[in-house]
Structure formats: C-alpha cells, structure tokens
C-alpha cells in the first residue's frame, strides 16, 4: 500500500533521514521505534510533505506522491495525527471534527454524511461527546489526543500516521487510545503507521516494526520478534542487560 524507497530528508544542513526505505501493507499496523532524534517524526513529516524528502520516492497505492503538497497527500488518503496533538485550540470540539472533513466539504459531499460521521467519532470517543461545544484548548491531554485522532479520521484516511499518541498521558488513557487504534483496523481496515517512544505498548498492537537509529533503519521484523529481540529489549524496552543475561 505504502512504499518508501531510499528517501533522504534534511533540516537545513542536518541530514535527518539517510536512505530510509520501508513499507506498510494494507490493513497493517506498523510501529517505528527508536530513541529521541532517531528520525521517527521526520519519517511521518516526510510522508506528509511537511518536510519533503530531497530525494528518493514515496509510492502510495501504486502512485508516486513524492512531489505532492501536504493537502494533496491528505486527499490521497494519508492523514497524520501530529506530535503534541495540534488541535485547533480556539475551536469547539465539533468544529475541529468538521474541519477534519474539510476536503469532503470541498468535494461537495453532503452535510448529512459528514454530520453522521461526527456522531460516529463521538461514539468512538464517548468522553468527547459531552464536550462537543467546548473549546478544544480546554480539554485534557488525553481528550485532545482523542480529538486529534477523530479529526484525522474525519478525512476517511486509508492510512493513518500517528505520532507519539501516548506522549504525556496517563497509562489508562494510553490503553484506551491503543484500544481504539486496534478497533479501527478491525472495523474499517485502516492501516496505521505508528511512531512511539512507548515501544512496548506500540509493538504489542503492531504487526511489524522498524527500529531507527540516527536517521537509519537498523532493523525490520515482526513485532513479536522485536519484543523478544535482546538488543531491542535492552535499548528500548527498559530491560537491564543484567536481567537479560541472567535469564
């Protein structure tokens, strides 16, 4: 479904992604794990053309999307939930969801269908439904994250890019959000590319995973294998070397 071939992305002089290649199959949940600054977010932003890659190719459903602008990429069916939620703080919860469907309004899709999708989002995140008229900036971190996911889903993406959805959230809320991600795949067949610091939780729901280090993909395996991988356990799952040796 998505294929990235040898992309290189730069921030000014800084070479942030070095010949990165990866793919996501239809209906798959793929996790990107790695330390801070490894380039996880940069991969998502390169896909969304927020920081377009300098070379290499991105192919989505058989078409090259390397030269498209951010809004055209959303139109193709790739929606990103950015790091730090980035909800429209001075807009109500409902307005945020409505703006998520901006392209569908422009595509002359009926208001009724969009309204009913907004209701679906409230069914998916019942916590939001009692706050529909509230300004998004007054929501808790977890609610803002739910809203950000809901807003992205309103565009009916085929591929959802999630950037650190668990950042700064209480464990129970994180569980809830991960539950929704799995449910989305089961119910709508949405493919997910998930970037997480919380490697353990991410690998648990994922089918496959990529490990990044200083802008390079250093490992690609099934998620369950990565969870068992000793090097990954030591570096990203918080297990002591000693503990691993003693087993």
């Amino acid at each position, binding site marked *: 479904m998505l294929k990235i071939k040898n992309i290189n992305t730069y921030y000014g002089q800084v070479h942030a992604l070095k010949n990165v290649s990866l793919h996501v199959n239809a209906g798959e949940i793929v996790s990107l794990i790695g330390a801070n600054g490894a380039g996880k977010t940069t991969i998502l932003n390169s896909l*969304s053309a*927020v920081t377009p890659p300098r070379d290499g190719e991105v192919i989505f459903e058989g078409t090259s999307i390397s030269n498209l*602008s*951010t*809004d055209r990429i*959303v*139109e193709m069916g790739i*929606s*990103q939930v*950015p790091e730090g939620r*980035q*909800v*429209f*703080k*001075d*807009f109500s919860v409902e*307005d945020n969801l*409505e*703006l*998520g469907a*901006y*392209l569908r*309004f422009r595509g002359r899709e009926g208001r009724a269908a969009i309204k009913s999708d907004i209701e679906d989002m409230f069914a998916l995140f019942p916590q939001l439904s009692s706050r529909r008229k509230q300004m998004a900036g007054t929501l808790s971190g977890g609610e803002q994250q739910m809203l950000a996911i809901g*807003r*992205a889903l*309103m*565009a009916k993406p085929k591929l959802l890019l999630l950037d650190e959805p668990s950042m700064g959230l209480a464990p129970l809320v994180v569980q809830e959000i991960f539950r929704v991600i799995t449910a989305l795949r089961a119910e709508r067949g949405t493919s997910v590319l998930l970037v997480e610091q919380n490697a353990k939780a991410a690998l648990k729901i994922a089918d496959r995973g990529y490990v990044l280090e200083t802008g390079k993909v250093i490992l690609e395996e099934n998620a369950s294998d990565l969870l068992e991988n000793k090097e990954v356990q030591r570096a990203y799952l918080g297990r002591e070397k000693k503990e691993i040796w003693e087993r």
Partner: protein
Amino acid sequence: MSEQLLQYLLSGLSTGAIYSLIGIGFAIIYNSTGIINFAQGEFFMLGGMSTYYFLSVAHLPLPVAMLLAVLLTTAVGVLFERLAIRPLRNASPLILVIITIGGSILIRGIAMLIWGKDTHSIPMFTGNEPLTIGGATILPQHLWIFGITLLIIIINRFYFYNTVSGKAMRACSHNRRAASLVGIDVKRMVLFAFAISSAMGSVAGIISAPLTMTSYDVGIMLGLKGFCAAIIGGMSSGIATVFGGLLLGVLEAFGAGLISSGYKDAIAFIILLLILFIRPQGLFKKAETERV
C-alpha cells in the same frame, strides 16, 4: 457645546468606520501570512478612483460603477498575491513587507499615470440634504457609511464563524501546519485573504469618496490609519479592530475640534506609538482568542 461634541462624535464614528474596514483588511492578511500588507491603502484608493472613472469617464450608473470598482480592486489584490507574494513564499516576513511597500508605490504610480494627479469626487449615493440628529447634522452619506460598514462586519463574522471555508481560514491562522494536515490548501487561503482584504478596502474607498474626495495618493494616509486601527485591535480581524478604528476616528475628531485640526494626523500616530510601546498585543487583550 454638547451639540458640538455630538457633531464631533458622529463625524469621528464615520471616519472610524472607514478605518475599521481598512484595519480588518490588514488583520486578515496578517493573520493568514504573518505579513503587514502596506499596499492595503492602495486598495482603498483604487476603490474610489476606479468608481470615479467608471462613473464619470465611462458614464456607467453608480451601482454598476461601484460593483466594477470592487471587482477591479479584488482582481488587483489577487494579482498582487500571485505575482508579488506567492513566488516568494519562503522569504522572511521582513522581505515580504518591503515588497508590499514596493507594490503600493507601483500601484500608486500606475494610478497616477492613468488617472492623473487631480483630486476627484463622486456624487453622494442619495442626495446631500443634511439630517439633524439632536442638534448635530449629518449627511445621508454618513448613514450609508455606517450601514455598509455594519453589513460588511456582519458578513465577515458570519463567513469566519459559520462557513467551512471561513473556519478553514481561521484554522490556518491559528495553526498552519495542523491546517495543512487536515487537507486545507494554505496557499489558497492566502489568496482568499488578499481577495477579501482588497474587496473590503475598495468598499471603504468607495463609500468615503463622496465625502472626502479621492486622488491617486489618498491610500498612503488612509492605509496608515487603518494599520493604526488594526494595531489598537491587536490585529484581530473581528470586533476589536472595529473598536480600534472607531476609537481612533473619534479621538481624531475631538482632537481636531477641541485642540487644532493641524494635530489630526499627529493624534493617530501618537496613539499608534503609545500602543506599540505599552500594549503591543492591542488594547483589548482578549482579542487574542478571536484572531483570524
């Protein structure tokens, strides 16, 4: 004496309404691009001058001339964005601001070549029989100014708060990256901002031309006054800038009436400087939340 004060108040409010319209134009462009468009005053000039042209040279009826003037000015605004702003999207705001100054000189120069240096006037919309309100006299044109300004502010508000395209424009100004990630074409919104701002500027120019006359260079001073209104309003494209414009207009009128008319422009710029020194966020702090 109180009649005199009422007179100052009314004429101040009508000048202030004009400042508001120009100020909102500044704010809309500022909020969508982060630049101050110093060509804003030229849209005001184009509105008045082209109405004069369509009316007196092309001999069209007033409503048609006004409509054509708005369309012409909007086309200039859109062209300006396309030719001067869009090609340089990655330039720093300072460079773009200087480009808008260059653009304003260019537009003014072309207007002078086409229409000459003379001052022109267009007729009042409906007669020039003064009306008396509580001892003060105003012209029907003043009522037109109040009415049209009010109408534009209401339409503006409706557009930005109740239509998807208006909300998308506000979203761009709040969080450009998030806006593009939901599929909003930010460049298109910038173009819209220039179209709306130039249309509003031209309307201001048209409705005030019967009272204040118009010439190729009226845009300089009115542009600065509109900028001043927007600064008082904290660059809000909503009600705060309207208050900023009205306040400025009223203070000017009282200053000119009670102190000396020679100080009229000085008052505006003293206010501008004071605001920039003391409250650069605008006079009404809450305005922050309704920036567009």
